[in-house]
């Protein structure tokens, strides 16, 4: 197979192996619980038996995903302290995610005997249409998210494996566009190129010196009478995959396979309990990992002299950022990253969208008593403040340690998405404990795995419970449901894994799109379902569809804006002119996958507005079922 590990990877892999064995063991143990009672209720909801610790760590581990441990660190590294404002609404997420809907959702689910979130809508309004639409929206958004999350898992494992580059031959080194040197290699799988940005504006390319033993090239530049050398690894070893141009990197493919097999296996076999118990393990790993990284990061920053005084630790990091670029320690951040309107939007985004996620709602339907909810609230408040403040500290220090090495376009060592795994390796090597990189890398791995497991089960429940059992075959036996559940979970996982072989580039945008889409589709419809007697099934349908559609539309418009930028003739130009009236159209875009921020506000703002208005207006326009309302809204007794 030609797999060659690099030095030090063996120790990292050992720690990963221990972690994966722990996860697998929990999955096997959870399977015994699935055998009790009603299969569907046990497999998808744990028979409403969640206690405080499992509820808290499961909710936290599911919410904190690859986005938090890979995407967020890369944004902190690139944009500096403004990311504190970007994420700070997590200070209220414990309250909003658990209390806004918590007890009331649990009560309504018990009244109807509901097992899934679409079940709650279906039972409350006695409407298959509402249940089916909710299921289809979940399927649409969660599938996108899953591909992105699988990619994250593959990337983390790829870093842990750190396979040796391919045995290659450097054939040419030529200056390309945008002051980048293009190195061309002959590799076992064909010709590959690596680009190397020039280190300074006045540097000139001088020479290359390949080292076939280390499989890297020493590239030498001259800048006046100074010489600057960079070490560039040979291209990554690849497998040829018939339907993918350019093949797939061996490290990524192997990483993806290990990740996918583990998470699909324990989710399929153990269901809800496997997912939640492994969440507890993963929650602990994440917390320990991030605290350890923060301690190591603060100690790894070089001291700096400021006004005659030596500053160390985090103060030194902040001071270095100030000297490198003052925008890194003030708002709105480099490249106008977070203007006021967007700061407002992101505060709403995390706090409100967390409450609107179907995966979060399922956990609220499954706690066993009110005390479990209250205690979980306390645990989760502590968890979030420690985790997110630690991440801010770690990756602020990362920018002080690596001021340009991982910056987009000019980084000599990689792209910003790589900063988490690279920082884990650097800190542990710097501290003299390289084996601990495995523990630190297990943290983002655990984050992705917990989210993927929850989403896999969510998709499976939508297909099996909401579409198959309650729409297609209501008389299915427990045995049939068991087989269908296992098969569905496994097949969905495999299909998503194949999709992740050639995944999208911009993980963070995919994750934001799916999170925003789900919360805009479900938050207000659920709030009104639970608290407003006057809500009708038509109102809920309108709210779900308008919320989800608004988010999709704004992302499509953003893509069109990028795709037609610069067009002067033809369809592109015509489209630009036709849409020029939209506030925010034609502005500077960070990425072609970024949405259109209409009037400076994130799509989530507009999605929530649309969903809120449609639910209320259509409900007022239509007639509620008073009999059902009486069932679900307890009357005051004398």
């Amino acid at each position, binding site marked *: 197979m030609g797999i060659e590990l690099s030095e030090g990877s063996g120790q990292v892999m050992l720690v990963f192996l221990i972690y994966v064995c722990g996860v697998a063991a929990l999955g096997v143990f959870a399977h015994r619980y699935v055998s009790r009672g009603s299969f569907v209720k046990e497999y998808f909801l744990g028979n409403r038996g969640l206690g405080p610790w499992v509820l808290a760590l499961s909710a936290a581990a599911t919410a904190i995903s690859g986005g938090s441990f890979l995407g967020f660190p890369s944004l902190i590294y690139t944009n500096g302290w403004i990311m504190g404002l970007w994420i*700070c609404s997590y200070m209220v997420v414990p*309250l909003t995610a658990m209390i*806004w809907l918590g*007890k009331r959702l649990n009560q309504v689910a018990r009244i109807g005997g509901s097992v899934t979130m679409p079940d709650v809508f279906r039972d409350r309004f006695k409407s298959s249409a509402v249940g089916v639409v909710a299921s289809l929206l979940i399927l649409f958004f969660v599938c996108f998210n899953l591909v992105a999350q699988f990619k994250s898992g593959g990337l983390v494992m790829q870093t842990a494996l750190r396979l040796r580059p391919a045995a290659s031959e450097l054939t040419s080194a030529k200056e390309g566009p945008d002051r980048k040197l293009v190195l061309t290699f002959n590799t076992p799988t064909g010709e590959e190129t690596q680009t190397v940005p020039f280190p300074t504006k006045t540097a000139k390319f001088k020479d290359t010196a390949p080292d076939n033993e280390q499989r890297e090239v020493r590239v030498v530049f001259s800048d006046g009478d100074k010489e600057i050398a960079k070490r560039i690894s040979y291209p990554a070893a690849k497998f040829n995959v018939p339907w993918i141009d350019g093949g797939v990197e061996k490290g990524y493919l192997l990483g993806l396979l290990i990740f996918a097999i583990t998470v699909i296996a324990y989710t399929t076999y153990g269901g809800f309990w496997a997912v939640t118990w492994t969440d507890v393990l993963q929650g602990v790993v994440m917390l320990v990992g991030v605290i350890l990284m923060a301690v190591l990061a603060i100690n790894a920053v070089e001291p700096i002299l400021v006004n005659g005084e030596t500053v160390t630790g985090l103060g030194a990091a902040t001071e270095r950022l100030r000297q490198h670029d003052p925008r890194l*320690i003030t708002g709105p951040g480099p490249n106008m990253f977070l203007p006021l309107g967007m700061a407002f939007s992101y505060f709403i985004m995390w706090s409100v969208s967390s409450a609107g996620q179907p995966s979060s709602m399922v956990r609220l339907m499954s706690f066993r008593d009110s005390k479990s909810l209250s205690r979980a609230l*306390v645990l989760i*408040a502590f968890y979030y403040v420690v985790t997110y*403040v630690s991440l801010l500290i770690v990756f602020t220090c990362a920018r002080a340690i690596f001021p340009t090495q991982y910056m987009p376009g000019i980084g000599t060592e990689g792209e910003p998405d790589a900063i988490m795994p690279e920082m884990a390796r650097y800190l542990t090597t710097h501290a003299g404990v390289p084996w601990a990189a495995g523990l630190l890398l297990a943290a983002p791995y655990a984050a992705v795995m917990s989210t993927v497991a929850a989403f896999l089960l969510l998709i499976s429940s939508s297909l099996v419970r909401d579409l198959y059992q309650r729409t297609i075959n209501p008389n299915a036996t427990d045995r049939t449901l068991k087989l269908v559940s296992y098969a569905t979970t496994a097949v969905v996982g495999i299909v998503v894994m194949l999709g992740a072989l050639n995944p999208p580039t911009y993980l963070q945008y995919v994750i934001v799109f799916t999170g925003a889409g789900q919360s805009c589709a479900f938050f207000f419809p659920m709030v009104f379902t639970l608290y407003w007697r006057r809500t009708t099934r038509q109102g809920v349908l309108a709210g779900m569809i308008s919320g989800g559609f608004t988010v999709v539309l704004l992302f499509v418009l953003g893509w069109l804006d990028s795709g037609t930028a610069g067009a002067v003739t033809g369809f592109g130009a015509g489209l630009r002119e036709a849409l020029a009236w939209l506030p925010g159209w034609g502005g500077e875009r960070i990425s072609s996958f970024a949405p259109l921020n209409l009037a400076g506000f994130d799509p989530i703002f507009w999605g929530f507005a649309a969903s809120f208005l449609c639910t209320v207006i259509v409900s007022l326009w239509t007639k509620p079922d008073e009999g059902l309302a009486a069932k679900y809204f307890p009357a*005051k007794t004398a």
Partner: protein
Amino acid sequence: MPDPQAPRKLFDHARREAWVVTIVWAIALVWAVGVCYVMGYEHTAESLVVSLGLAEAGRREPGIVLGFPDWVVWGILVPWVTISLFTVWFGMWGIADDELQEDAAEQGGRHGH
């Protein structure tokens, strides 16, 4: 013996607790975004915060407190700690310990509409 008023009490308490959370959420929004904007952002001479005397025009050089920029301390860390303490209090003493009723029979059939 189950309390016949329990379902209604749960509904009333859940609604009250949701309103409390909404108020806390709004306070957090104004505090965090407001303080960070006033103390941490660059302002033009014509901006509202400058005309109200809350900030000066131009980019302010932040002080460093415990390694953090000062606007991060006052606009993010202090509210975060405050609200976390409130959350602990709320979880321990503010949320009513309502009785959750038994599960209805699991639904399996179609629903007409």
